[in-house]
């Protein structure tokens, strides 16, 4: 096999981290890995080495919400996708609600509704919470103390995001002020165009 190098001597640390991550049923943080492989192992260095090693392979090592797991390479999806895996499509309401939560979190239900222009049915948030992508994130200290929502580590893992900073286009949206409330955006516009009249 010209394209498959022979086995290289690996450090014990790399082998150990590789084995632990491979065997784990769930993504693991560096601390958790450390608890298994023992003191004195440079877990971060081993993770970096493994990430590089697996980068071009059929399986990749990825970091999601500071936790690591192996997964199959995205370009091989067609080999692995089985019909039964075709997950039920989310409703448009659920997709938009999820996007609003992800890009604005923490965000209250009223704020979600203000952006969407319609009330959200109880079921929409339930579906997202049941999927494990959205969680209650405490109450906002304003009158009425509304509950706010935020995304979870599972959300990032599911959508292949290392962190919320990787949300598609979030920097552009932020720069365009499209993640600010309308009142703030209006003030900003007034400032930019100068005071009118008065």
């Amino acid at each position, binding site marked *: 096999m010209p394209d498959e190098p022979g086995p290289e001597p690996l450090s014990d640390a790399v082998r150990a981290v590789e084995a*632990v991550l*491979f*065997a*784990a*049923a769930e993504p*693991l943080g560096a601390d958790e890995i450390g608890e*298994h492989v023992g003191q004195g192992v440079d877990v971060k260095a081993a993770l970096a080495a493994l990430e590089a090693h697996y980068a071009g392979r059929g399986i990749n090592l990825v970091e999601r919400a500071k936790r690591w*797991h*192996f*997964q*199959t*390479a*995205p370009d091989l*999806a067609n080999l*692995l*996708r089985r019909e039964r*895996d*075709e*997950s039920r*499509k*989310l*409703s*448009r*309401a*659920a*997709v*938009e609600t*999820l*996007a*609003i939560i*992800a*890009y604005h979190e923490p965000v209250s239900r009223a704020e979600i509704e203000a*952006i*969407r*222009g*319609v009330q959200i*049915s109880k*079921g*929409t948030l*339930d*579906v997202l919470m049941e999927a494990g992508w959205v969680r209650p994130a405490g109450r906002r200290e304003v009158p009425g103390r509304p509950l706010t929502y935020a995304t979870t580590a599972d959300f990032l*893992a*599911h*959508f*292949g*995001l290392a962190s919320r900073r990787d*949300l*598609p*286009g979030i920097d552009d*949206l932020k720069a*365009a002020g*499209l993640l600010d409330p*309308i009142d703030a*955006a*209006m003030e900003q*516009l007034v400032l930019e165009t100068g005071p009118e*009249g008065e």
Partner: protein
Amino acid sequence: MDESDSLFEDTPQVGSADRLTLDLDGWEGPLDLLLTLARSQKVDLAKISILALVEQYLAFIADAKKLKLEIAADYLVMAAWLAYLKSCLLLPKDPEQDPSPEELALRLQLRLQRLSAMREAGARLMARDRLGRDVFLRAAPEGLRVVRKSLWQADLYDLIAAYGNVRARNEPAVHVVGRRPVMTLDEALHRVERLLGLRLEWTRLESFLPETQDGEYRKSALASSFVAALELAKRGRLEIDQEAAFAPLFVRAA
């Protein structure tokens, strides 16, 4: 999940406001409809003509009415508000008006931009390589196990103290009843009968008791003497009198 199944796949596409494939249930409210109409202008939402958009919306609602479609109240409220906005935008500017119609129009535009941005963001999220759909975890991981091992703690003192407790708890108990000075009933009968012969008048029962410093013995003697008096009364040998409950008892020979 009433809205989850029905709303995603079958969103009606409206090429323009003129060509109506009317199904108001297909929109998620007036803002959604407005956004669809705005996109038909095929310009950046930031450059959209609000006046034109208002015209589109009002025409759409008018057509819906013509077709006698039931129109939800919020679409009509939006129509009324847009008609008002349109008239404000067209009328000569009133500097006193706050907020100005331009500001209202701008707010509407910002709302449409935000909804549009989130709609696109949602679509981009859904198109990512998703776990369980495009990329897969190891299907049969061995799993990691944490085995809790108890290190039991006890020291020698605990041990021998525990044994002491057990033994002490179950040591056969020997009960010794202390001997107490008592006057038996026979003795009291004999004594009361003998003394009664010497007393002709009513006499308190206590005067029959022996002189003693021993309180315990005195109590015993009193109880026995009382029972002896009852016995002698039964035999008709003496009479007992008591003026009230707990009053002193008097006896005399019958």
